[in-house]
């Protein structure tokens, strides 16, 4: 008994629940604080062997020799997998059937195209033997010069940037706008390569049973990973079972299955036993994606009243020599500030690095820090307060497209955050504030924005004879709180208390929940859950209203409410019947409904859909040493309906701290001679630690959006970085009078 509701159908009844909007603590909290949450590398099937990767120590060239004999002679080593004995694949790992099928290094030849590329896999009885075996391989190389840096090769204009958007876009006449301007600014900013560095290294435990494959591995997109693996091995997708109940962070790096994960599967195939392969931290700087560096030039013109007459935003970025991902940094200028003329463009160079990838707010984060810095420079050039300048150029419609916004409570974000921060007392000129200890103090702000994206998802809902419910969707929890937020949506969708709902996720044998990315998972899978709930309740209502023995007989679907495990007549709530009674009368053990989540094409066409926010930062700079500390951050965000304010606030905090990190901490440093990354570890690649994190506040600004989806959900996972990085940068300028133009901001930049 299945009823399926499509994404754009209105459910024919009302479900009244109380779970959505509640600040529930995490439902997976107990497992996570007791160490019983099972992450991929915690699995240990019987007979399992350990695999260790050997990776290239050069950026470009060829592996000339590997001492396989030495490795094999080491006690405990079972096998060494190289291009010579790697099991055959059904598909070429260098084939690319669609833009999101990234090319993988699966020992298809002896070529090296980036540092830390896999060149062999050693499989052993113990981790120690595998690791030592890998060291014994002592690779010899034929080395070619590495192409490094934003000027390391010939520039070209990519065919598409980000998810395939045009590399060059414009409206109006930017040159004329600049020409007619009273005031002009031009500035060039550089952002570094960054690596996701989720705390959990990519890991896989793979076990073959004939042509069936069982895998534990973290994945932000189970169905896509399943399809990719099935294609590589020439087996049916349903023969690949991936379990990913918990991801130890993803941030985009676990969106696609990576080469090392597939090598774990190949190793298991080669030895005919289950194999565990876990990347070492330094091995994560290469094959699992990164945020590409950018160099961005912004030009802006303003009239006598501080209104923008033109915005020109050009970004150079980098990709690998063998695949395409282009950070769409300049696109940040499409949505925030009204201007009669806007031109954005990208070009790129190809370097001997791993292929860049989506990393938390790809394009938005890099573009935002440059755009918000330039806006601050423009405001100062006009002699205006940065908030006043932003309000003067407030976009009532999306600047690039002219589309109305589906909703936009940015004004309220500015107001609430500015008020909370105390912005009104800020001196206009820099270097005017000092604290009691003599530290230079500065206040800066930035606007945050992120598109409200939806993908495709499906869910299955079941109501059981005992009146309880089940909701299934292969959703992925990488810390954003899917286990909790989706259970809340499921409870309301089924008209049940949350404790009456069994929620299943994190496994590829469940309905495809789409990807946990683009800040679109809650909206997409949430709508699938919502619609599956509607479908099964509609089925239940049919059973009741069509049966003379029911107190709901004759009410019709339109006239029923679902709440607390009962259906009620809409016009007479004294007449109701429990789910259990309805199913018992019908003699059914359970009934099922299915739902989908997807963007509505009509509203996509009509509206610009974005979440917005405003972030204010205070920094203190040591006038003698140039050391910078962020001491206070206040953000206010409007992102449609909030499913769980406790978890949403945590997403904002996390994003804002990533913004601090962007401005002050993170940078992968490449050696210009060898092309190797010099700081591929967590001591030298700086991410914020507890002591780096100041007082952070995130205000949740109410926003109803009737157009994004029936639940009114936008997305909260990435927006916090945008705005924040710029706010910190602008606060540094306000403290010191020095305008940072390269990131992360360095002490030497402060000392001039």
């Amino acid at each position, binding site marked *: 008994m299945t009823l399926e509701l499509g994404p754009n159908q209105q459910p024919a009844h009302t479900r009244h629940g109380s779970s959505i909007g509640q600040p529930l*603590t*995490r439902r*997976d*909290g*107990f*497992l*996570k*604080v*007791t*160490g*019983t*949450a099972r*992450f991929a*590398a*915690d699995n*240990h099937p019987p007979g399992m062997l350990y695999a260790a990767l050997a990776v290239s120590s050069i950026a470009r060239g060829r592996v000339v020799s590997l001492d396989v004999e030495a490795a094999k002679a080491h*006690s*405990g080593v079972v096998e060494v997998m190289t291009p010579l004995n790697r099991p055959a694949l059904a598909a070429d790992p260098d084939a690319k059937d669609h833009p999101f099928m990234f090319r993988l290094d699966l020992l298809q030849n002896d070529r090296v195209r980036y540092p830390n590329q896999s060149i062999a896999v050693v499989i052993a009885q*113990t*981790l*120690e*033997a595998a690791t*030592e075996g890998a060291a014994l391989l002592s690779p010899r190389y034929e080395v070619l010069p590495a192409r490094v840096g934003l000027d390391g090769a010939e520039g070209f204009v990519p065919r598409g940037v980000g998810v395939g958007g045009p590399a060059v876009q414009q409206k109006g006449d930017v040159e004329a706008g600049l020409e007619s301007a009273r005031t002009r600014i031009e500035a060039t900013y550089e952002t570094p390569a960054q690596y996701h*560095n*989720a*705390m*959990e*290294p990519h890991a896989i435990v793979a076990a073959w049973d004939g042509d069936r494959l069982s895998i534990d591995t973290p994945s932000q997109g189970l169905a896509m990973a399943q399809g990719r693996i099935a294609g590589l091995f020439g087996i049916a997708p349903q023969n690949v079972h991936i379990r990913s109940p*918990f*991801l*130890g*962070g*993803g*941030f985009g790096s676990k969106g696609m299955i990576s080469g090392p994960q597939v090598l774990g599967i190949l190793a298991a195939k080669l030895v005919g036993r289950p194999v565990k392969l*876990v990347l*070492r*931290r330094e091995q994560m700087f290469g094959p699992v994606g990164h945020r590409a560096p950018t160099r961005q030039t912004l030009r802006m013109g303003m009239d006598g009243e501080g209104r923008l007459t033109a915005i020109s935003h050009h970004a150079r970025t980098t990709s690998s020599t063998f695949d395409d991902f282009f950070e769409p940094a300049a696109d940040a200028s499409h949505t925030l500030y009204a201007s009669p003329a806007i031109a954005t463009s990208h070009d790129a160079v190809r370097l001997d690095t791993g292929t860049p990838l989506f990393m938390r707010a790809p394009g938005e984060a890099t573009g935002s820090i440059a755009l918000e810095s330039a806006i601050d420079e423009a405001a100062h050039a006009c002699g205006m307060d940065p908030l006043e300048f932003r309000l003067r150029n407030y976009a009532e419609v999306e600047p690039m497209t002219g589309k109305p916004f589906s909703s936009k409570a940015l004004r309220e974000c500015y107001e609430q955050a500015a008020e909370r921060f105390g912005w009104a007392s800020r001196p206009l000129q820099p270097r005017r504030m000092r604290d009691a200890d003599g530290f230079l103090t500065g206040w800066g702000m930035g606007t945050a924005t992120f598109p409200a994206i939806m993908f495709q998802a499906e869910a299955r809902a079941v109501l059981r004879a005992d009146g309880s419910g089940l909701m299934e969707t292969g959703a992925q*929890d*990488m*810390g*954003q709180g899917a286990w909790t937020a989706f259970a809340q949506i499921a409870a309301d969708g089924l008209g049940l208390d949350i404790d009456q709902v069994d929620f299943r996720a994190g496994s590829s044998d469940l309905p495809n929940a789409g990807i946990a990315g683009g800040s679109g998972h809650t909206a997409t899978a949430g709508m699938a859950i919502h619609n599956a709930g509607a479908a099964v309740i509609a089925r239940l209502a049919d059973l009741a209203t069509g049966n003379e023995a029911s107190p709901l007989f004759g009410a019709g679907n339109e006239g029923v409410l679902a709440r607390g495990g009962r259906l009620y007549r809409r016009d007479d709530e004294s007449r109701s019947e429990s789910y259990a009674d309805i199913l018992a009368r019908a003699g059914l053990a359970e009934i099922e409904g299915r739902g989908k989540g997807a963007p509505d094409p009509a509203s996509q066409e009509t509206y610009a859909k974005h979440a917005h926010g405003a972030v204010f930062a205070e920094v203190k700079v040591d006038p003698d040493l140039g050391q910078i500390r962020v001491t206070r951050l206040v953000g206010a965000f409007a992102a449609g309906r909030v499913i769980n304010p406790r978890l949403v*606030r*945590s*997403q904002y*905090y*996390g994003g804002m*701290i*990533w913004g601090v990190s962007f401005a002050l901490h993170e940078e992968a440093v490449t050696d210009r001679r060898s092309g190797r990354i010099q700081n591929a*570890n*967590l*001591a030298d690649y700086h*991410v*914020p*630690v*507890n*002591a*780096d*994190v100041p*007082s*952070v506040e995130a205000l949740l600004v109410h926003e109803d959006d009737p157009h994004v989806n029936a639940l009114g959900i936008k997305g909260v996972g990435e927006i916090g970085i945008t705005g924040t990085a710029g706010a910190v940068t602008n606060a540094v300028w306000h403290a010191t009078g020095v305008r940072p133009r390269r990131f992360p901001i360095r002490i030497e930049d402060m000392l001039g």
Partner: protein
Amino acid sequence: MTTTLPISLTVNGHHHELEVDPRVTLLDLLREQLELTGTKKGCDRGQCGACTVLVDGKRINSCLALAVSHDGAEVLTIEGVAHGEELHPVQAAFIAHDGFQCGFCTPGQIMSTIGLIAEGQAGADPERIREGLSGNICRCAAYSGIVEAVLEAQQQLARTDRRTAA
């Protein structure tokens, strides 16, 4: 065969007599041989703190400790902190204050917090708590919640101590 050495360890109150490869770290011993996988490996070189456990009451990075060098030690891991369903005050406070997101660094954060409180150095000063927990990286950046959780758990533990003393 690789040489092994005999050691004895008490882990979460259970005594073990073991023969270990001298290359095996305490972390890998716990995870791969004793099936105590709550303790996590984030970097394997003492930079992230995900592997924090208490050895003889002191917090250490178990990835930097060779198992053979801790013969006779008493080890407490995340699995030994709760009493069945009853959470330790630090664990409960981490849930209440959303002191984690993905949960991967959480066992290390909690063990480090228990160690920090026992050291008695941080008191109720958030600045010193932040400093004292800065060996434990949380890439999700749940730091605010962690500090709130530490403050609350400390109070809770102090109350319990007073009751016990009285």
